């Protein structure tokens, strides 16, 4: 076993026993970190590996969340089944977007704008979709939080902690597997030079579709988790473009295209943002918007001074540079 695997396993072991030492607030912070690590990982498959910039990933979070929540609330379908439907819905949505874009040769800026357009279109659509509450929001039944009802995903934050951890680990493993395999090489070939990849015989259309579909399917799980963790859904919130931006922050700050970047980025961002919250609270300046300003500055500064993110530099210093993570960073 090489060093990076040992370090990762050690980290995982710590995270597995961590809930014993955490209060509810810190538990919520950790869940947030895992959540953003996972969606960041999902987005990274599309942008970091395959070079297709999506600024509409809130679409898949929202579709996944609404699908599983509506099935549960209206038909009593357990979330583990609803999840599969949610994945199917998201993959279909991604296939439509991908097919339209790639079939007609839309790339770069135009593709990013297309993803925004679809997300916004869906947001306004859901605001008028009364079956799931429209603008008024959609609410799941909340039960007492001391139970562990894993089947219906109702219960104590500790359960959600382990679910979120499982998501983050799962996302990491899927990404690692993708990077190592043939698919990952095709993705990166397309990202680095689409024409050259085509000339080398890669079916560019097919693999770009795979990238978009895999990314959407992963994001669907995040959506289901979101729905059952927060219990309320508002189109204005879940589909909003600021959600999509939130999703892409962690991998950008951590390191686009790296394996550990989204995880590190999620941890840094969440801790910084909670720290800012706490500081603002202590200072008594709880003005809405201040936190977003600091976010904006962080985003701008990181893209300006660290275009490859934080992780590649750290990885080099820690001696992980020959590991798979930053092979292409």
């Amino acid at each position, binding site marked *: 076993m090489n060093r990076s695997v040992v370090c990762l396993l050690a980290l995982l072991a710590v995270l597995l026993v961590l809930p014993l030492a955490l209060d509810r607030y810190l538990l919520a912070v950790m869940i947030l970190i895992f959540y953003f690590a996972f969606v960041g990982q999902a987005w990274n498959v599309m942008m970091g590996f395959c070079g297709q910039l999506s600024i509409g990933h809130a679409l898949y979070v929202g579709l996944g969340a609404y699908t599983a929540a509506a099935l549960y609330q209206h038909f009593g379908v357990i979330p583990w089944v609803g999840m599969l439907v949610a994945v199917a819905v998201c993959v279909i949505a991604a296939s439509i977007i991908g097919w339209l*874009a790639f079939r007609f040769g839309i790339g770069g800026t135009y593709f*990013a704008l297309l993803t925004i357009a679809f997300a916004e279109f869906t947001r306004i659509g859901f605001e008028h979709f009364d079956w799931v509450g429209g603008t008024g929001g959609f609410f799941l039944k909340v039960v007492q939080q001391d139970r562990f009802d894993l089947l219906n995903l109702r219960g104590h934050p500790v359960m959600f902690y382990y679910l979120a951890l499982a998501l983050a680990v799962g996302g990491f493993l899927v990404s690692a597997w993708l990077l190592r395999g043939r698919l990952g090489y095709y993705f990166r070939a397309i990202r680095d030079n689409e024409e050259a990849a085509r000339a080398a015989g890669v079916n560019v259309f097919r693999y770009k579709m795979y990238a978009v579909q895999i990314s959407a399917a992963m994001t669907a799980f995040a959506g289901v988790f979101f729905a059952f963790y927060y219990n309320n859904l508002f189109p204005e919130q879940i589909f909003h473009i600021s959600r999509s931006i939130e999703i892409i922050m962690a991998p950008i700050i951590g390191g686009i295209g790296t394996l550990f970047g989204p995880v590190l980025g999620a941890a840094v961002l969440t801790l910084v943002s909670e720290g800012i919250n706490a500081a603002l609270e202590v200072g008594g300046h709880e003005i809405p918007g201040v936190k*977003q300003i600091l976010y904006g500055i962080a985003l701008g500064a990181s893209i300006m001074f660290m275009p490859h993110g934080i992780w590649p530099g750290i990885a080099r210093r820690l001696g992980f540079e020959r590991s798979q993570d930053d092979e292409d960073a």
Partner: protein
Amino acid sequence: MPLDAVLNIVASGLLTGLVYGLMALGLSVIYGVVRIVNFAHGELMATAMYAAVFAFALADIDPLWILAPLAIGFFGIGYGLQRVLVNPFIGRPEHAQFILLLAVALIIVNVLLVAFGPDARSVQVPYALDSYEIGPLLIDKVRAICAAVALVTCAILFAIFRYLSFGKAIRACADNLLGAQVVGLNVKHLYALTFGLGTACVGIAGCLMSMLIDVTPGLGPAYTLLAFVIVIIGGLGSMTGALAGGVLIGVSESVAGLLFTPSAKGMVSFALMILVLVFRPQGLFRAR
């Protein structure tokens, strides 16, 4: 539905559309020359709207009087933005440029939120309720003035690019960057001038728009998206396309408000954009 009502709604959509067109024109000019998608466009517009609201609330100044100073100020903002922030990003990957301007947008919209709060503000000029009666049409005076100012501004911009030497130099950069550099044009300066001109357009558009609708910080992102919808429908980088796209969206918004509910009008715009992106990605008003 009486024909009069429909005509009135189409006319008002058309006039608002001209202001939209001016806003989108700014975005299109910047993209056409600098090849940067200004993701902070709507936020700059919202800033101009707040400037107008502020001047009105503070000193009772008609927004029309501050058009010129605002345009000059915004020209300066745009020039500086390009010189300081955007210029180092030319040649960097598209996603990096995108994210840089997203960060700028995020900062602007939240500074507005902190400074002015989330409440809606408006400008009520004394002639706000006046209107012109032309045959069966009843046209708001404010809207007509705004449309006229927008048209004049567009005409000035077209004239700059057509007749002034620095306008021609900017077009040279857009047509052939290498050639422009070879003949010794100061590309950095010209890019910044272009960004300034685009920003001045959006400044004027924002000032006009403040008379037509209530102003909230949330308008920033909404107008960024709207400007994108318009320029994509018209063709990114095309000046006439931006204007025509603005009118088209203005009319389609008001008609959609009539046919469905006003809150669903954005859906029609986005659907139009998706259709255009898929079937005519170069835009409706532009040759391939």
